[in-house]
């Protein structure tokens, strides 16, 4: 049971959060300009890093804010959390 530090509410059990996968995958500014392959990469390809991994969480059962975290996928240790818009 991870203890995830919501940047607003503080540490809460993992149960209160929804996982949002890799962070910093921006919606393309002009999807129509992308090839099918490029669009497919945006849709489906995400990093699957072994080690520190920037990812998104939402405190769904709490303040409902999305935020970012860097978590080591080998140890599950959360190295830092930061709000959307803050630098990685």
């Amino acid at each position: 049971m991870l203890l995830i530090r919501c940047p607003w509410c503080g540490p809460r059990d993992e149960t209160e959060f929804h996982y949002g996968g890799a962070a910093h995958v921006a919606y393309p500014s002009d999807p129509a300009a992308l090839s099918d392959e490029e669009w497919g990469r945006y849709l489906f390809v995400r990093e699957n890093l072994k080690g520190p991994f920037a990812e998104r969480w939402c405190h769904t059962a709490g303040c409902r804010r999305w935020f970012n975290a860097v978590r080591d996928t080998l140890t599950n240790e959360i190295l830092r959390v930061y709000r959307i818009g803050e630098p990685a």
Partner: protein
Amino acid sequence: MAEPLETTIRSPLAGWTPHPLTGIRLAELPFRTQVNLRLPAKGPAADAVGLELGVPLPVEPGTTAGSGELSVLWLGPDEWLVVGSPGADLAARLAARRGAGVSVVDTSALRTTVLVAGPRARDLLAHGCALDLHPTRFPTGRCAQTLLAHAQIVLVAVDDGTSGAEPAYHLLVRSSFANYLADWLEDAAVEYR
């Protein structure tokens, strides 16, 4: 054929008579006025709303502010729940502030309130609430959106107005989950009969 309002209103837990318990009181506090506010935490809009309410919006996460029957619960960095006594005209007053970056939604019927109080209140809540409710960590005046078992609740540590030393909590729960919450509390409380 319309009947007067008073006889047609029915709370989600109408008819609930909790089993008597040792060291725990359970009760529904129905029909409390609730208004959901969304606006930037700082700026003229927040100031204006604070003036209207007579209390500034709390900006510290998990805190409440209040005066008299009115309390304002921090729900998120740009979200508050204003709670007042049943029938209060909060929604109408705040609706005047709507627009220009302020969202005001009357949610009075969205949730009902369950009181859990008494010397063993914390023990009961600990069966389903993962928060540390020790008075040093969650003193009177704190609030949190969290889970009690499988129901989302807004949990508020309140001064129940009794002896003062006795722990008391308000559990604000969505109307459709209220029966589940009551059933769950009653079942957890079998230990304390």
